[in-house]
């Protein structure tokens, strides 16, 4: 289209509420806005005045899709503030817990939110009759992730057992072994997922992308590590506010995130696989070959391939952890509440999630700052869309509109999260 307007009033198959509005005049994009109209919930305001032990419980409610990440990040930040060291067992169980959510979230996105785009359906519901085996596989993988989350956390949405130092209740060795059997079967289904992704034809759009993720030498970083980028960033994640900035723009209830130099950046599965390919499990590296993508990739459409690779990795590392854990033992995790501040970053399925808190000597929250992964990506989505549309102006309007939706969906955005916390605020 030469001139006109592309409008999507309510973007579907993503979490939360957003709209797209693009104006094109004489072959030039004159205006492009990703409007996030998700109603604000102002978590940041009412966290101030709550007690430290409520943070994993309350912040989990920011996102129904990745509550596990909110709990892990909040706990790490609190433990940093109180100077709590967790045991090796807790560290392993937390990794397993976080990976279970990767399995659930990636299966949900690959099959239910993204695949209909690539296969030409409006939803997984209409896809079910033509692709019954694939849909059943998706449901099995997603259920497995959910069951593992529930085994450790008590339930899959807003789990209840994580607490400072560990968990209030531990899974038995026997129940973990039962899940391990299912994980072994699921490994082949995850490889089939990588094969399926390899058959999808994805649009080609590349630009000079900056990507940011946690990174660790000895393992595929999820709950810890340093915060790095392909442009030389290498910092203690607790210092995130000094390097990653937010600004409020008029058309969105989500703030835009930028690097110090004002440029946008990408977080999430593609950023992680690009930066941490060496730490992937052996089968995950095989899966990468099956997807046909040569990592590192600068094409955001390869996020779906990165998700498939991480699905395989999550299953394989879960098996390793369960093998090592054997029978989890009850631990006596004491800690002392003290005044101070703590910050932490973990990898949610959609990318880096940062929390920062300050407490008084009773453990009452004085300051809270949370930045969700989608807030990090919104600026990058808009920047990429401009390039993408400019390249596809020859397409008919309806097709261009669909391609734009597909481009946005590919980031697996979660606007429910992105709207609630964005800015550092010091309360007196």
């Amino acid at each position: 289209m030469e001139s006109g307007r592309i409008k999507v009033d309510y973007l579907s198959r993503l979490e939360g509420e957003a709209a797209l509005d693009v104006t094109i005049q004489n072959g030039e994009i004159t205006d492009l806005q990703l409007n996030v109209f998700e109603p604000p919930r102002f978590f940041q305001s009412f966290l101030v005045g709550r007690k430290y032990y409520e943070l994993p419980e309350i912040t989990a409610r920011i996102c129904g899709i990745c509550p596990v990440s909110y709990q892990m990040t909040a706990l790490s930040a609190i433990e940093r503030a109180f100077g709590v060291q967790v045991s090796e067992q807790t560290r392993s169980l937390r990794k397993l817990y976080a990976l279970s959510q990767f399995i659930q979230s990636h299966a949900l996105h690959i099959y239910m939110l993204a695949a209909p785009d690539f296969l030409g359906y409006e939803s997984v519901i209409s896809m079910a009759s033509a692709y019954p085996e694939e849909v059943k596989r998706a449901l099995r993988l997603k259920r497995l992730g959910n069951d593992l989350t529930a085994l450790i956390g008590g339930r899959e949405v807003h789990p209840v057992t994580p607490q400072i130092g560990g968990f209030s209740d531990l899974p038995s060795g026997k129940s973990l072994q039962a899940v391990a059997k299912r994980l072994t079967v699921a490994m082949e289904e995850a490889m089939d997922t990588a094969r399926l992704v390899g058959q999808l034809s994805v649009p080609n759009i590349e630009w000079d992308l900056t990507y940011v993720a946690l990174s660790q030498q000895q393992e595929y970083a999820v709950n810890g590590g340093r915060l790095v980028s392909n442009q030389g960033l290498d910092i203690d994640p607790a210092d995130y506010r000094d390097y990653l900035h937010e600004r409020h723009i008029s058309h969105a209830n989500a703030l835009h995130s930028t690097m110090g130099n004002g440029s946008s950046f990408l977080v999430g599965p593609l950023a992680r696989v690009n930066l941490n390919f060496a730490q992937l499990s052996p089968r995950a590296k095989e899966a990468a070959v099956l997807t046909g993508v040569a990592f590192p990739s600068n094409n955001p459409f390869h996020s779906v391939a990165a998700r498939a690779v991480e699905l395989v990795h999550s299953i394989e590392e879960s098996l390793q952890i369960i093998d090592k854990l054997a029978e989890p033992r009850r631990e006596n995790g004491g800690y002392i509440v003290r005044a101070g501040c703590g910050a932490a970053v973990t990898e949610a399925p959609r990318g880096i999630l940062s929390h920062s808190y300050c407490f008084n000597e009773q453990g009452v929250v004085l300051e809270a700052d949370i930045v969700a992964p989608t807030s990090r990506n919104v600026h990058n989505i808009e920047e990429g869309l401009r390039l993408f549309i400019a390249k596809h102006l020859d397409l008919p309007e309806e097709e261009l509109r669909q391609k734009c939706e597909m481009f946005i969906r590919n980031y697996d955005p979660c606007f429910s999260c992105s709207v609630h916390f964005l800015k550092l605020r010091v309360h007196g």
Partner: protein
Amino acid sequence: MSGLPKVAIFKFASCSGCQLEFLNLEPVLLDLLGMVDIAHFVMARSAVSPGPYDIGFVEGSIVNAEDVGRLKEARAESKLLVAIGACATHGGLQAISNWLPMREVENSVYPNPVQTHPLKSFPVSEYVKVDAALSGCPINKYELVEFIKSALLGVTPRIRPHSVCVECKLAENVCLLVSEGKPCLGPVIRAGCSALCPSRATPCTGCHGPSSDCNVESLRNTFVGLGLHQSDITRHFRKYAALDAEFQKGGRT
């Protein structure tokens, strides 16, 4: 499109966790799709078929004027309007901020709050008639299935009005409140979770909202007897159902 009952899922201020529970019904999801036509479910499908709908599920609390309008449209289009989850049934966690000055609340997140037009957070029933409510943060997916089955059969669903204590006793747990002196909200919170938290050595924090005829005053006195600080007692009652009349009394400062 088919002769099946039409179901719509509407989202307001929420985390999407309750609508995710529909997709978390994996083992019965395909069967469910054979029984109802999911006509409006933006998180899961692009196609939206217009109302009227036989059942409209509403997730989320109402926090701005635009949403009051959207809610009224949803009400008009739904024969049966069902509030799902603590946000829709009680205003949710975000209603905690109703006790804070609005200006302070807005400034805490947005540097330019004039753009966000918020009200305080209220349950759906504040603005429209609600035919049924499934409480919980999130809703319990087994209660959801039971509710849909009942609606399809045209019978009154069995929504548990009694307290978590009943399910906790059935699970044969040692009482955290009486035996361990921990501040458990179980006595005043509606069941339906199979005593999830107390069964995992964690006191109930109240995510299912008030049970019928709950004696909040008595529990408040028990908490005082346990030596809880006044501000902690307020935090316990001013949480998932802070706006409930009894809980407002329990959480008085």
